[in-house]
């Protein structure tokens, strides 16, 4: 028994020493709000992390913490990585904003990247993607394909990004059919397959024959498949779950951004900035168009090319729900107005939760 104990202690001591050394030039660390198995938001960030590993090989080591709740645990998780020698830390949820800023103050040499927030510092950059560009395209498709002229939108929480998504979808739809109707249901959750499925059914029962969602699970698409209506994938290509129902999907593609920023750290050229990439930068990717007639695919591709060429979906004329003018003809909304959007465009059949 004594010998066993001795051996154990020796092994532990050895292990502790050997773990201290690491061969990589840089350690890149990630904090996820959900499980990497959500097949949605966190899953796609983790795909980006895997792209980094593939791209840099042994030069960059990665680590991640998943299911870190926004709140008191976030600051500890971020600080742990900063202490563990991470050179760059990606915090991938809005609720991590203030903890990221706090920890960044304590560790001026570590680079921080916060997704979807608005506070920056000399060592804190922010990044997000223009998902609303994709939403404009699927809005157009919806208006072309819907027989009832009504789509259902399953929304998570009324934050600007989600509201902008709804508006972009509506503008896209109205560009095809000015009388298009959109019903919105808030499920107050990013991730609850059961609730999302129930909401999808409720929307279909009320006449929607196109379902789209700004929540993370594949449940709404599966309901669409079962009920014989159509929908769109969210965050990742979900065609496997709805081979007949999915028209396309708005895919979050974080890999290119992560690789670019990590390369900059390695080169010593990293600077704090706010990145808001879209289709042009390859940060938002449309999954293959399926189950669609050729002319609709052509229209979608044309819009995609137009957006990639620099056109902004939030270009006037845009009328707010209350009838006031949001943007005159030909005027493009400023980034700040889109990032802080708290109003609906005209035609959305819902009252925005205030």
């Amino acid at each position, binding site marked *: 028994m004594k010998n066993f104990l001795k051996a*154990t202690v020796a*092994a*532990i001591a050895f*292990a*502790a020493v050997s*773990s201290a050394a690491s061969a990589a030039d840089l350690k890149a*660390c990630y904090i996820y709000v959900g*499980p990497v198995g959500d097949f949605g938001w966190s899953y796609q960030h983790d795909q980006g992390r895997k792209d980094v590993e593939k791209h840099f090989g042994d030069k960059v080591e990665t*680590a*991640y*913490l*998943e*299911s870190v*709740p*926004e*709140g*008191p*645990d976030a*600051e*500890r*998780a971020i*600080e*742990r*990585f900063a*202490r*563990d020698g991470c050179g760059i830390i990606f915090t991938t949820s*809005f*609720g991590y*904003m*203030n903890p990221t800023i706090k920890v960044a103050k304590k560790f001026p040499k570590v680079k921080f990247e916060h997704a979807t*927030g*608005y506070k920056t510092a000399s060592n804190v950059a922010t990044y997000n993607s223009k998902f609303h560009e994709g939403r404009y395209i699927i809005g157009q498709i919806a208006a072309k394909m819907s027989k009832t002229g009504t789509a259902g939108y399953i929304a998570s*929480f*009324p*934050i*600007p990004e989600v509201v902008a998504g709804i508006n972009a979808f509506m503008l896209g739809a109205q560009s095809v059919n000015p009388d298009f109707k959109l019903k919105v249901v808030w499920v*107050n959750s990013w991730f609850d397959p059961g609730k999302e499925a129930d909401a999808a059914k409720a929307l279909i029962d009320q006449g929607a024959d196109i379902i789209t969602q700004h929540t993370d699970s594949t449940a709404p698409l599966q309901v669409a498949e079962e009920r014989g209506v159509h929908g769109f994938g969210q965050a990742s290509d979900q065609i496997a779950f709805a081979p007949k129902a999915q028209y396309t999907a708005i895919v979050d593609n974080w890999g290119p951004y992560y690789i670019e920023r990590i390369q900059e750290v390695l080169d010593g050229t990293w600077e704090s900035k706010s990145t808001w990439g879209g289709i042009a930068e390859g940060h938002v990717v449309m999954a293959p168009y399926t189950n669609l007639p050729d002319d609709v695919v052509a229209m979608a591709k044309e819009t995609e090319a137009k957006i990639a060429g620099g056109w902004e979906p939030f270009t006037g004329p845009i009328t707010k729900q209350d009838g006031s003018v949001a943007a005159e003809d030909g005027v493009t909304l400023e980034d*700040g107005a889109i*990032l*802080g*959007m*708290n109003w609906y465009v005209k035609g959305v059949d819902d009252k925005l*939760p*205030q």
Partner: protein
Amino acid sequence: MRIELVKRKEHSRKMALLSPVIAVGLTLVAAAILFAASGTDPFLGLYKFFIEPLTDSWSVQEIIVKATPMVLIACGLAVCYLSNNWNIGAEGQFIFGALCGSFLPIVYPEFETSLTLPLMLVLGALGGAFWALIPAVLKTRFNANEILTSLMLVYVASLLLDYLVRGPWRDPGGYNFPESRLFSEAATLPLIGDGRMSIAAPVAVVVVIVLAIVLARTLKGFEIRVMGESPRAGAFAGFSAKRLTLFAFALAGGLAGLAGTMEVSGSLNQLLPTISPGYGFTAIIVAFLGRLNPVGILVAGFVLALSYIGGEAVQASMGVSDKIASVIQGLLLFFVLACDTLILYRIRLHSRRTTATGEVSRA
């Protein structure tokens, strides 16, 4: 072969001390097997999980930060459970207390005096107590089962928080994002140490000591225990079950609300849509692991917090999945609970149905 429990004549003091050690030993073996099965070095894994967090002042402070709200809530819950009041809605009381405690710094941010913080704490405790009194009153007035009502109110409280943070209490300068304004200096709990530890930690220790004395040495403590073990005897002694129910719920809710306010003021500095990673539920486990004894709760809270911090450490440094961490946590709880049996019972193994006296066992 069958296992039989034989009740000891009195609590085994030896086992009371030994059983947690055996439990930890079993957990270590199980964890080592898990690590090995998932392709990680088991020794390194165990070291990172259970020992390294204790060797570094930062992580020790983090363990204390994590343990503080759980200990505070569990203390109140212990009083509930000792007196047979099944309050499992501490999570809601935590949240509602935090809401009430945040009222001042969010609605009257310019009110910055030395009174701000004490007022917040009082409001928080009152708020938590109020939320806990709802199931208590429904129980005493309408006989409604408190397990259900207290649990349902958790969901209501978290939806209310959600509504406020996304609506009326949204930070006016926050681009409509769901968060309240940051608290001012006057509304922030003073920090101690060089990490994130605030005076909430010593407050929790004081609560533990006071409660330990009250339970062991005072008439109130006697009342709580008597009413839990034998309500009829208590009634003869002139104790009122209804009043005790109200008292236990109010105390538990008050402590949970205080914990919520201190968490928001000391660590978050603002309200977010989620302010608790399930503290109210974890505290139930802490209360029972600590054998409903305040000092035991202190130890249990520390151990459970260690299992969180350690789980995070192996995840961050060795890429061990967080599911393994939660499996280890579940096993630790099972082993501790199972080993505690040894305090009250001796285990006897039988080869057949007959026992030493030849009588047929009915169990």
